Structure formats: C-alpha cells, structure tokens
C-alpha cells in the first residue's frame, strides 16, 4: 500500500492506461459482437459456427494471442486492445444472440402485424427487449477484461500490470499489491456501474 499512497499520480496514469486498454477491447468486442450476435439469432445456420469460432478463440491463451498479433500490430496498446477484445467477443455475442432470440413470438407477431418494418421491429421491439441481457454480457465482459488487461503491460501497453510485472521482477510484494488492488477496485466499480445500468434498462 505504501507505493499507492506515495505515488497517486502514477496510479492515476496507470489506471487511465488500464482503462483505455480494457474499454477499447470491450468496445471492439461490442461493435463486432452486436451484429454477429444479431445475425446468429436471425440466421439459424450461422449460430453454431459463429459461437464455435468465438469459443475456440476464447480458449487461446492470451500471451500466445499477443505473440500472434505482435507481428501484425506491433508492440503496444493496439495489440493489447485487439487481443483482449477476442475474449469479450464470445460473452457479448452469446448474450446478444440469446437476448434477441428470446423475444416471445407473439410480441414479434404483434409488431409485424401492426405494420412495423423489419428495421422498426428490431429497433423498437427486439433490441430494447434484448437490452438487459446485452448489458449483462457487457458487464461480465468488462469485469473480465479489466482483470486480464494486467497482461497488457507485458507487451508495452501499460496499465496496472506494469506494477505487477515490476514487482515480480524485483520480488517487491508491495509493488505487486499496488498493481493488484487498484485492478480489483476498478473491476468492482465497473461491475457496480453496469449493474446499475442493467437495472435501469430492465425496468
């Protein structure tokens, strides 16, 4: 704790780096996972392959994934963001797919029956009804990503992982803690915030 208390501005800077990586990764996962999840819910044939690919990617160890990406994107934030987004993708895509697919048939029929276009049906009925599940997926993805974003430091993307790796290298437990505790706090705060959002969209 000594390091945290005596280096507030370093903690703040690392926190911002950490958040940038995690937020960027989840954002990319959302941008890719939302349309893919919707497509998986709409096109039956796509569901299994899409979820299988996402599931397999999920199983690749993150360090190995970084190793693959470094030749393409170089060391640094970009690789970290893209690499980590792979892990959120599965969760977000699956929740979007389940959310969209679980809208009750009579409600869809009513929407179609009163003359909604496909787009209106999606925007006014399917998406809002799937939203609680989508936000829940987002929350799980965000919390998970904040945790594994510590690894980003290993490839030069900064974040609280920097302290952890430095602590490991110098056998400095205080430094390891100084990286770990803020990471956990960040994850918890994010969890609470998104829980709140979840509750708002549910009511």
């Amino acid at each position: 704790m000594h390091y945290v208390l005596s280096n507030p501005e370093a903690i703040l800077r690392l926190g911002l780096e950490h958040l940038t990586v995690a937020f960027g990764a989840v954002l990319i996962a959302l941008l890719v996972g939302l349309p893919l999840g919707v497509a998986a819910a709409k096109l039956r044939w796509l569901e299994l392959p899409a979820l299988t690919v996402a599931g397999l990617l999920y199983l690749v160890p993150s360090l190995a994934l970084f190793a693959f990406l470094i030749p393409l994107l170089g060391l640094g934030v970009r690789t970290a963001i893209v690499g980590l987004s792979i892990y959120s993708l599965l969760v977000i895509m699956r929740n979007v797919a389940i959310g969209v697919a679980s809208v009750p048939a009579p409600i869809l029929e009513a929407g179609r029956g009163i003359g909604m276009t496909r787009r209106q049906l999606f925007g006014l009925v399917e998406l809002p009804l799937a939203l609680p599940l989508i936000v829940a997926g987002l929350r799980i993805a965000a919390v998970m990503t904040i945790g594994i974003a510590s690894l980003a430091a290993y490839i030069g993307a900064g974040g609280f992982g920097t302290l952890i790796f430095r602590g490991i290298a110098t056998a400095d437990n205080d430094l390891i803690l100084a990286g770990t505790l803020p990471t956990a706090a960040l994850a918890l705060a994010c969890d609470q915030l998104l829980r709140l959002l979840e509750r708002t969209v549910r009511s």
Partner: protein
Amino acid sequence: MTEALRLEQVAKRYGASTAVRDATFSVAEGEFCAIVGPSGCGKTTTLKMINRVIEPTAGRILVEGVDAAAIDAVQLRRRIGYVIQQIGLFPHMTVEDNVSAVLRITGRPRAECRQRAHEMLERVGLPPGEYARRRPAALSGGQQQRVGVARALAADPEVILMDEPFAAVDPLIRKQLQDELARIQRETRKTVVFVTHDLPEAFRLADRIVVFKDGAVVQAGTPEELLFAPATPFVSDYLAESRELLGLHFVRARDFGRPATVERPDLPAEASLLEVLRALAAGRREARTIALGAAPGGNGWLLEPADLVRGIAAAVAPPG
C-alpha cells in the same frame, strides 16, 4: 354493400400438410364477421393470410377490391387492425406507447400519437389518467386485452382482425368486453373479422358467421341461415353439439318467443333452447317459425329465427 374483403379459394400448405384447403368467403364493409369451427380447422391461418402475416400458397385475397398480394405487406398491415390471441403487448412500453405504436411507426407527430392513444383508451374503458403510463404487466388480463383492442383501433383502420381476443379472460369479463366491442363496432362501423371458439360469442356479435371444417368453408351466412338453412349436417351438428351451448339446456325457449295460439306445436311449451337447436339439427321443422305449445290449437309461443339467435347469444359459455 361494398365488399371490404373477399377470399377466393385461398389455401395454405406446409409441405405435405394442408392448414387451409379452400377459404372462400367475403365480408361486406362495416360487417362483423365471425369465423368459427373446430380446433385446427384453419381459422387462425386464414385470418393471418388476410394481413399477410402468413403468405397464402394459392388463391386470392381482395382488400377493398385490391389484390392483397399486390400491396406492400407493411402498408397493408398498417391499414388493418390486428388483435392476436396472446395479446402481444410490448412489455417494455407504456400502455400509451403500445396503443400509439401503430401511429409512431408511420411517423406521426408525438403529440398527435399521444392524444389519439388517450382517445382510444377512453373508448375501451381505460381512463388514460389512470392507465396511460402503466406497463402492460401492471394490468389484469381483461385490461390488457382492452389495450390490444385500443391498439388495433388507433390507426383508424378499415378492417380489424381479431383472433380469439377474449378466450383467455373469465366469462364475466368476457361478456363485458364483448358488449364493449359490439358498442365500438356500432359506433365506428368498422369491418371486423373475428375468430372464435365460442358460439354464443359469435351469435352475440356477428352479422355473418363463417363455419370452417378441415381447412375449408362449409357455410357462410347469417346466424339465422346457419340455424334454419344449414348447408350440411356438419353445420347443424356443430351448432347443436357445441360444448359452449350446453348451458342452453337450462334456458326456456319460450322466454324468447311471443305468446300466440299454436296450431301445430313443434315442441312442448317447456322446451329448452338446446332442445330447439337439436330439433333443428334433426330436421324436425317445417316453417322458419318454431311453435311451442302443449296441444294443437292451444295457447303457446312462437319463436322467430331472430328470437332464437337472441337466445343463443344470451347463453354464457361454460368457463375453460
């Protein structure tokens, strides 16, 4: 009378099985048309083909004289009100937004939508002050069904389709909803096509009844025609044996007739409406007027076709 709807040999097949074989009937403008028939005979499928929620595999449907297949499906549906059996209210929208959804999707201004929604809620007996801002989950089944009706009316459609809208509500509320629907239809003169299992409901509401059997129309006629000129034995049996009409066993037919001197009574003076129906089904009648009495030439009662329809309409279907 102009025709609001005409179905010509409409059919729907799913692979090898046939849901509707031959739906042929027409509905005049402002008419209340009930579709009845045993479960699985194709009533719902027929209804959904009218607003193209289901596309027919054969035949032609004319809406106001125009082939529905030639009209953009979305535009067609916006001209046709639709109440489905499962109600299908949007759970994430307020009652007001549910009702005005049909207007908002056509891009009408918010204020107009709101005002129209409130008018419609008023019309179906849900004071907007109390109900407009609620979610459907905060309403009883009967109230939800009223919102469904309000939604179907909101865009002022030419035709309204209803699929067993009151089947899930208990008999007392059902009667109330039927009375309100009858009043609304009288006031607005909308063309209504109404699918139901419940024969008393059909007799209470409909100007014309279309009887389906195994995916085809066996008869389309006024309630009187169905009773006194059934097209096939199936129609008369369906009327006489319908579970919903068993309650007529306890209703005296003469209560709906007028006292008269009866030359040749068809049935005893104390005959129930069910007995009258069964006598009609058995073909034991000569004239359209049914005579009830104890002895030839004595005092009795005469029952006109309209009286019988009134009597059947008054029956309360047993619950469930």
